[in-house]
């Protein structure tokens, strides 16, 4: 068990609970024909969440702090992949599915340790083409294929 993470988590969850409690007070307290309004359920849940977070915080006191036995982590690889996914998600609509996916996959393959760049590029393009072709041509779904300013 990770003491530090659980402590932070309990603070975060308590804050989330408090947020729901506070903002549910601004929601109407009754609905038409009923004394029970849309505020009640989130209010109760928020309170329970705060109580549970307090309990988690209390429980962390009895954790035995383990010695460092962390396996070698690939934090750098992880961060690059997260960042690449973020850019991919963000620009998918603007530059179209085909270009964004090909670039993302190429970068992903290289980051994950593929040695030969042309193989990565080939697989990336083939995979993108296969997904796009299958979905748009055969299943007749709609995806933004190319950037709109291509005029295709």
């Amino acid at each position, binding site marked *: *068990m*990770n003491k530090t993470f*659980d402590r932070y*988590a309990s603070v975060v*969850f308590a804050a*989330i*609970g408090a947020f*729901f409690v506070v903002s*549910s007070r601004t*929601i*109407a307290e009754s*609905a038409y*024909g*009923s*004394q*029970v*309004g*849309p505020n*009640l*359920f*989130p209010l109760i*849940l*928020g309170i*329970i*969440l705060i109580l*549970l*977070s307090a*309990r*988690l915080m209390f*429980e962390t006191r009895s954790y035995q702090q383990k010695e460092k036995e962390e*396996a*070698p*982590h*690939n934090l750098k*690889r*992880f961060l690059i*992949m*997260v960042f690449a*996914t*973020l850019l*991919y*998600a*963000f620009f*998918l609509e603007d530059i179209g*599915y085909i270009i964004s*996916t090909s670039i*993302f*996959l190429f970068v*992903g*393959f290289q*980051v*994950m*340790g*593929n040695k030969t760049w042309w193989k990565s590029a080939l*697989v990336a393009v083939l*995979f993108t083409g296969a*997904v796009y072709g299958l*979905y748009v041509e055969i*299943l007749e*779904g709609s995806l933004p294929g190319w950037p709109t300013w291509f005029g295709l």
Partner: protein
Amino acid sequence: MSALQYLSDGFLLALQWHNLLYAFIGVLIGTAVGVLPGIGPMSGVALLLPVTSSLTSGSSPEEAAASAIILLAGVYYGAMYGGSTTSILLNTPGESSSVVTTLDGYQMAKQGRAGSALSIAAIGSFFAGLVALIALVFLAQPLAEVALSFGPAEYFSLMVLGLCAVSGLGGKSMTKALIMTIFGLLLATIGIDSVSGVSRFTFDIPDLYQGLEFLTIAVGLFALGEVFKTIMEDNGGAQDIIRVGRVLPTRQDLKDSAAPIARGSVLGFFIGVLPGAGATLASFFSYIMEKKLSKHPERFGKGAIEGVAGPESANNGASGGAMVPLLTLGIPGSGTTAILMGALLMYNVQPGPLLFSDHPQVAWGLIASMFIGNVMLLLLNMPLVKVFAKIIDTPSQYLLPMIIAISVFGVYAVQVSTFDLILLLICGIAGYYLAKNDFPLAPLVLGLVLGPMIENNMRRALTTSNGDFMVFINKPISATFLVIAVLWLVIPMLLKMRGKKVIINEEG
């Protein structure tokens, strides 16, 4: 009409060629997903959720729902089976329900009996599926009729019971499981309230008016979360895979495993019916039981075929049993069934007692397709075991970015919004860190799915009682559910305090 009549209608539906194809694709992809390291049944089903919805977009809503659920259920069974393949060949369980299989399965493989172990697992799974099917046919309709007499108060308490059961068995720390449950319920309140039309917690962001999309969260938490875990923690050490020799089991193997398979199937089914207690517990209990009943308990852990046959049947029986509360009560007992329920809701099909009267095609079609799926698993796995074993070798540098790309594609194809893609990524990161620190994800998804229903039933009950909370205790059935719910949380706590080791059900 009698249950058998409905069942034969269900078979007619499931035997339509396109549904057969969906069942086949589901089982095939499921097995592959189960064999692949890093994706289990839950992430497999989540990953395919958007894909199925675009696959079935051409047909009428009800047909589409039946087809989609047939495919997804196929993935579920397939992945369960695929998970045991890696347990036997690699000593690394694909998912938690096949952890027990490693004990004897890997030993058998080392002795050159990998083929027997794999085929016994397939036969056991098939038989368990059959038992679950028969039990479902007889249990489903009566249970649904009982549930029809429930009012909002009873329903509310029943759902509370379901959530407590899953949280109580949900992971290493009950507090964390409960936090995740409540968090899921809270996330479900975001959006426009269906009763009063008031928008809640939306901050005037249009994307939030419809609430957080279940599909996005499920794919993010499970599929992306597991990919991030592999990216972070896997260092790509190549493992030695044991070669599969003779595939068919010997006569002696069959004789030895017949009784364990039968016992495991029945035990598994009933454990699966209980909310919260899923395939993992079932396989665990079955192993313990076989060891106790065996005349040679010392052989267990050294390659006893009973130790593979029993648990493997039990975990498949449990996944069939888990369908009972989902279909009849509308209450999923595990993460995977919660995702299946989310899929049904996407098609406007509400699981629950009315499912059998409103959408008999969907309910009975699914039950029939379970059987067909199991036949396909058997037909597919006996000859193809060697092929599937090769999938384990798929280089992860290609696989992981592709899974991310499929997740993004799937969510975008259904939601068509950049907002959902960003939410997907956030859920992926959150899923990785939460799961890593023993915050179980299944209760969160369960809370998210059940949230709107639990809230509506609570408000309906309170409206009829003029805001008096005693309504939940004054009704005997409702009170019983609540008492069981409290016991479910308190008993493990007491046992823990007395220093007993409590068996928990990780994932499911």
